[in-house]
């Protein structure tokens, strides 16, 4: 109870400090005073520490099951294991907004410690403080995590077993660090624009603040996808679900930003495009937050207590969008370029990469937002099937892969045609032969999409390996090479996985043995296990094909509080394929169990390649951090 008040007080105080920071900054700007960084630093730190305190108190309320707190009451339960009590703190709307704001402030906090010029630092903190205030007001007005209930209830409501999962506990913080991390680049961009210092040195510093959140977001998306893969029990890892798309859009935009910023850094051009992308990336993050948090995709009852919440988030986001773009229009950084220009030059390829990424982004955006708008305008409820994404993205992805293989090999300054032809002569035969071998060895169907997908992803992998071997400045390019290699492996694995996956659905009795295609499935035994809050039924299966024999024990859990059944999949994974097994209870045939078996090739490599992409990013961001100023 007492702690709740302290937490609430800390939230209010942080808002007051923050508003104070904004007003004193405005005063400084208006009167053209000398910038007092000490004062700013003090206020900025205070805001961060206060928010940290209120977040820790929220976690404390969750761990001690203080049900006088509404958020705890609704989302926790005394019987929850400790780790889920803690993760419960950010697993709900209120708590996740606190985390959101804490991360905003965290980035502001560490940014102050960077070596950026005083003026830029001052303005960046200023813009960041405005963002923090907007979200703090939203939090306090519409979703205060410290609302009290009196008398204190004896038991909490929330014990949803589906949400009790270690991955679900850690994946939102990663996503949030990614999403919210882009706020810093956003503020930094606005700072660069208003002070007319959007130049090479801006780019130099921005690099770290772009690539770090990008890497975290990559991990976050990967974890989310991994969770869907083993928790939902459908054998799939990406459903083009609006919530997933919401995280993919800022990723695509940020990927474009990373590349255009390199051009700004190396050639001192594309300023205005880079600035626009930086603003746009954060807007995409906000759009994601809006879609997930406004209830626009969700049920009515989840947000029934507050119909204003969605409207507030919407107005907030559009205000931010409008003012940031207005600043961009007024202060558009124009630089005249009088450098020699060649067509086959690295920057043109990077620009091309940007066009493609923006196109991919638009496709995802249309697929995500169109149903919402159509529903609003005409009242028709629709959903966009995955085929839409696949058919549109695939052909462009092929061209994208081809350019991605050659672009990085070009030089920054001179026409490089000759070298290119030489490269094609090496890459093409190797990739054609490799992909033909794979296709004739493993596939019955000769689908053109499959052939192109394999061919071009192998093409990319080979070009990266070639680049790696002939690299003179390995340290400089190591991050890029790792990420690109990861991307090549990812596309390759996705294609193999899509075309070679197998699914078996049937019902079985203990002792049954069935043969479907090349798989033999034997249902050997069944055993039960009683835990504190659930009862678990395991089915033991033996799956074999010509070169593998695996034992799998999927289970069904019956929870009593609340009464719910979940099925726990059993996955045996190796470098070649995953054997994925799930069971359901059949209500009608008491002695039989419904079984679902999936054969999913190269799943390991999908996760591994996502990790590679992120690791490349981490490497690069650390390197930029250590690199001395140009």
């Amino acid at each position, binding site marked *: 109870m007492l702690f709740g008040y302290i937490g609430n007080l800390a939230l209010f105080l942080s808002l007051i400090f923050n508003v104070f920071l904004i007003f004193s900054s405005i005063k400084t700007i208006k009167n053209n005073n000398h910038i007092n960084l000490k004062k700013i630093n003090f206020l900025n730190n205070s805001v961060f520490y206060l928010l940290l305190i209120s977040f820790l108190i929220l976690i404390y309320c969750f761990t001690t099951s203080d049900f006088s707190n509404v958020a705890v009451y609704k989302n926790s339960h005394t019987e929850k294991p400790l780790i889920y009590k803690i993760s419960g703190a950010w697993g709900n709307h209120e708590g996740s907004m606190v985390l959101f704001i804490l991360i905003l402030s965290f980035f502001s906090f560490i940014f102050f410690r960077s070596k950026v010029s005083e003026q830029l630092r001052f303005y960046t903190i200023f813009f960041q403080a405005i963002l923090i205030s907007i979200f703090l007001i939203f939090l306090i007005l519409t979703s205060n995590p410290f609302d009290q209930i009196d008398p204190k209830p004896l038991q909490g409501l929330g014990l*949803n077993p*589906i*949400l009790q999962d270690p991955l679900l506990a850690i994946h939102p913080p990663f996503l949030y660090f990614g999403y919210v991390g882009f706020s810093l680049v956003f503020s930094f961009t606005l700072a660069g624009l208003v002070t007319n210092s959007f130049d090479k040195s801006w780019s130099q510093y921005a690099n770290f603040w772009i690539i770090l959140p990008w890497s975290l977001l990559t991990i976050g998306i990967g974890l989310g996808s991994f969770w869907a893969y083993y928790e*939902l*029990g459908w054998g799939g890892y990406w459903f083009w*679900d609006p919530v997933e798309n919401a995280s993919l859009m800022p990723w695509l935009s940020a990927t474009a930003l990373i590349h255009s910023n390199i051009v700004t850094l190396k050639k001192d051009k594309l300023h205005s495009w880079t600035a626009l992308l930086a603003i746009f990336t954060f807007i995409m993050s906000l759009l994601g937050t809006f879609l997930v948090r406004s209830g626009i*995709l*969700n*049920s*009515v*009852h*989840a947000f029934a207590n507050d119909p204003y919440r969605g409207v507030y988030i919407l107005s907030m986001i559009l205000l931010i969008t409008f003012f940031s773009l207005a600043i961009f229009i007024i202060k558009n950084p124009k630089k005249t370029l009088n450098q020699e220009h060649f067509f086959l030059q690295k920057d043109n390829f990077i620009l091309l990469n940007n066009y493609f990424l923006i*196109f991919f982004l*638009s*496709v995802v955006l*249309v*697929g995500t937002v*169109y149903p919402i708008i159509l529903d609003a305008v005409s009242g*028709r*409820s*629709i*959903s*966009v*099937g995955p*085929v*839409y994404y696949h*058919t*549109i993205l695939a052909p462009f992805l092929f061209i994208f892969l081809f350019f991605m293989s050659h672009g990085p090999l070009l030089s920054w300054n001179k026409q490089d045609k000759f070298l290119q032809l030489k490269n094609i002569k090496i890459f093409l035969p190797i990739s054609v032969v490799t992909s033909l071998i794979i296709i004739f060895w493993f596939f019955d169907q000769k689908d053109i999409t499959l052939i192109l997908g394999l061919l071009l992803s192998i093409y990319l992998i080979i070009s990266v390996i070639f680049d790696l071997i002939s690299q003179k400045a390995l340290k400089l390019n190591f991050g890029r090479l790792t990420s690109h290699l990861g991307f090549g492996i990812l596309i390759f694995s996705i294609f193999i996985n899509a075309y070679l996956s197998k699914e078996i*659905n049937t019902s079985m009795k203990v002792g049954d043995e069935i043969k479907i295609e090349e798989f033999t499935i034997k249902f050997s035994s069944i055993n039960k296990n009683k835990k504190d809050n659930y009862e678990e039924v395991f089915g033991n299966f033996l799956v074999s094909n010509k070169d593998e024999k695996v034992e799998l024990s999927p289970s*069904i859990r019956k929870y009593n509080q*609340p009464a*719910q*059944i*979940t*099925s726990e999949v059993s996955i045996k994974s190796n470098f070649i394929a995953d054997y994925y097994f799930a069971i*359901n209870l*059949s*209500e*009608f*045939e008491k002695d039989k169990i*419904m079984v*679902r078996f999936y054969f999913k090739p190269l799943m390991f490599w999908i996760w591994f390649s996502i990790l590679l992409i992120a690791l490349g990013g981490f490497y690069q961001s650390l390197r930029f951090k250590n690199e001395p100023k140009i």
Partner: protein
Amino acid sequence: MILSKSTKIRLRFFSIIFTIVSIIIFFVYDNLQKNIVYFYSPEDLKNLSVTPTNKIRLGGLVKQNSLKANANSYVFIITDFKNEIFVEYNGLLPNLFAEGKSAVAEGVLRDKKYFVASSILAKHDENYMPREISNTLKKNELKK
């Protein structure tokens, strides 16, 4: 009309860009239209003059005591409290599927009263009801 050389080049450049962009936009639009899955409630289907032949989604509550298991498929009734439609599905019913709860089925209509589902969507937790369903349900209850 006489055009200078640079204008000509620019004109050609823009017409090429314009053509490419239009083709791409058409491609995207066409694909979007082809892959839209419309959502219907039992009542929507009743009011339609033409029975849709392509893939649709049907949503509502699974009627109490309507679920029956045949040799290799399930049959149950999806209702919005006013109209009912038989749904046949041969696959595994998801864990969250239950009588008296909401469900969304994706598939094709055999006729106006009979729906053959290729998948049952139940990616939601105990408190979640797909928005489309809660809308139709509420509408019908209010009309009563």
